[in-house]
């Protein structure tokens, strides 16, 4: 019997190794079974999957992310509700993959949106940001101070991704509206973009942006570059980034990692005035595996996924990839030089309320496209103002 699996992460060796190891272990435990994995980049994978699924040629298991509700909608993937070992999986991760009563994905990778700080630089400028974050004008002042000193306050860029530019606005909106209202805003169900709270939140974000939060090269900085920009050259005070940050930053400095002795801090992002949920944060389920509904060995496929759904595997993932997972794991069990980081991360996430998924994972079609173009890029780049955002987003549903 042969199981086929297509996945993203072709160039992320740690993840590849994790899945390949699991596959080899599974093969050892199930003689006669082979697992054939094709590794792709994300773009090509999506193109290949789209065509292959349309033609009924997709593999048994494949990579998916939570925004791909079309799989569920068209019944192309298997409902795993009664199949997967859900006890080993975080409840929020299960909730994210819920659709119409079923649960569809095995949430291997997960991450939170964090505001990383360059503690050394902040100290030099005499700015202190508590773990719980700065509120209202305090944050704006901090940004102004940093910018005034000729430094870059926040190192984001949108050169190659449809979401990092939106982190600032997104976090502010979450905090201002609270989890439920924010989700209905994004889905276009209930809360409108013309809602005064939205406007206030946007105006607050605009204030930060106008204070010079982002570098001039904001539009061309790519994800990887933003990391380097933040920790090495020329250096920035803050970086709002997914918690996959360390998967790159903890590499050797020669390979683009952060300098030794870099004082990395993690804090809560800016909190808008009148925040409904000052301690709201975002957790996103990233790379997940789903089972093709047309698979010839669905049970075998589920068995394979279950073989990864163990706390040991969860910890192995954490250690190898330095990013969270939907598998229940115990970060405190991690020892060694990364332990410190996981402690900080745990501290930063102490007592927060999670919203699930960043906006592009929750939106569809024109709205998502408009969001990427405006909130993710044009707005933070200072190309458009609050009114345009409201107009364009409002008319995009």
């Amino acid at each position, binding site marked *: 019997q042969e199981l086929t699996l*297509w996945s993203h992460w*072709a*160039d*992320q060796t740690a993840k590849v190794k994790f899945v390949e190891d699991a596959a080899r272990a599974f093969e050892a435990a199930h003689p006669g079974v082979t697992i054939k994995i*094709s*590794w*792709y*980049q*994300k*773009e*090509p994978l999506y*193109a*290949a999957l*789209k*065509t*292959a699924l*349309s*033609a*009924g*040629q997709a*593999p048994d298991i494949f990579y998916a992310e939570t925004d791909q509700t079309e799989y569920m909608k068209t019944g192309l993937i298997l409902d795993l509700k009664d199949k997967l070992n859900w006890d080993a999986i975080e409840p929020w991760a299960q909730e994210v993959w819920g659709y119409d009563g079923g649960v569809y994905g095995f949430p291997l990778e997960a991450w939170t949106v964090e505001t990383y700080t360059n503690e050394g630089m902040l100290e030099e400028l005499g700015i202190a940001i508590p773990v719980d974050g700065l509120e209202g004008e305090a944050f704006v002042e901090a940004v102004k101070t940093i910018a005034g000193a000729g430094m870059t306050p926040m190192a984001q860029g949108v050169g190659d991704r449809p979401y990092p530019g939106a982190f600032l606005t997104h976090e502010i909106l979450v905090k201002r509206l609270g989890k439920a209202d924010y989700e209905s805003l994004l889905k276009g169900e209930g809360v409108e973009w013309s809602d005064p709270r939205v406007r206030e939140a946007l105006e607050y974000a605009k204030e930060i942006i106008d204070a010079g939060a982002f570098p001039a090269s904001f539009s061309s900085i*790519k*994800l*990887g*570059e933003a990391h*380097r920009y933040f920790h090495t*050259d020329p250096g920035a005070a803050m970086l709002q980034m997914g918690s996959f940050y360390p*998967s*790159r930053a903890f*590499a050797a400095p*020669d*390979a*683009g990692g952060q300098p030794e002795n870099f004082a990395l801090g993690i804090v809560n992002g800016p909190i808008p005035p009148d925040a409904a949920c000052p301690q709201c944060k975002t957790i996103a389920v990233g790379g997940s595996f789903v089972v093709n509904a047309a698979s010839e060995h669905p049970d075998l496929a589920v068995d394979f996924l279950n073989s990864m759904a163990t706390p040991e595997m969860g910890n192995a993932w954490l250690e190898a990839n330095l990013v969270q997972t939907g598998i229940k794991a115990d970060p405190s069990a991690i020892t060694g030089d990364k332990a410190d980081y996981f402690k900080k991360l745990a501290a930063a996430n102490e007592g927060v309320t999670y919203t699930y998924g960043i906006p592009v994972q929750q939106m569809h079609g024109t709205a998502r496209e408009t969001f990427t173009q405006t909130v993710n890029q044009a707005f933070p780049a200072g190309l458009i103002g609050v009114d345009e955002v409201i107009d364009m987003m409002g008319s995009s549903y």
Partner: protein
Amino acid sequence: MAFASDRTAVASRPRISTAALRSAALILFIALYTAFAAGPFVWVASMSLRTTTEINADHYAFPWPMHFEKFAVAWTESNYDTYFFNSAAVVLAAVAILTVVGGMAAHCFARYRFPLKGVVYFLIFSTIIFPPQVTVIGLFQLMVDYGLYNSRIGLVLVYVAIQLPITIYILEAFFARIPGDLFDAARIDGYSEWAIFWKISLPVALPAISTTIILNTILLWNEFLYAVVLITDDDKRTLPLGVLRFMGDQLEDVGMIATGLMIAIVPVVLIYVFFSERLIQGMTAGAVK
């Protein structure tokens, strides 16, 4: 500015100063444009010999020491060898088939009159306007039906199909200019139409053939969309995916990307250098004239 037929000293002697001024401006223009055209290439070439750390320190320094070992690393660590040979095999086969099949069709359009010739020609040619991003899906379904999905042969045939119209277009123009007497002479020498195609049309049209070979090789060597969608096995994939791999998600490894780019560019440059004189001749007569 001197013209070809002005090469005589006759024309330029009396107004030396303005002529010198003009030629200085001309040389400046040419130098600037040359820097513009070739500079980027030189820049990547230099970066391909430097490590990312060196590059980040100074993006424009001379590549010293030269890290030729990067090529070896790129070649071995990223499956480049497999990709490279797949690309070579697929492109070679596709270009060979294209040359023959396209040549045959072009020969037919150029030499014979038959009913609906204009319509057929228009049909074949008009489809080159179609965005491949859409047809690829329908094509995918068909490839599965044909049992050619995830096979290099399938990719070869698709490549033939996408380059066929332009190949026919270029060759037809050239074939049409081969004097008809040549074919009549061969007929009288006792050759069948088929033999005439092989022994007269193709050899005589060598310049145009080289043109299409170069163009097709360049375009197919760099083809990306179909290569991604129609091939799933890693050991059947082609080079453009390898190039993309270097600009991976994790790190901006500028130096390594540059090395990968160079590996992808060099074969095409070699093909071009090898055929470039022919290309000129081919252009004179075929293609776009």
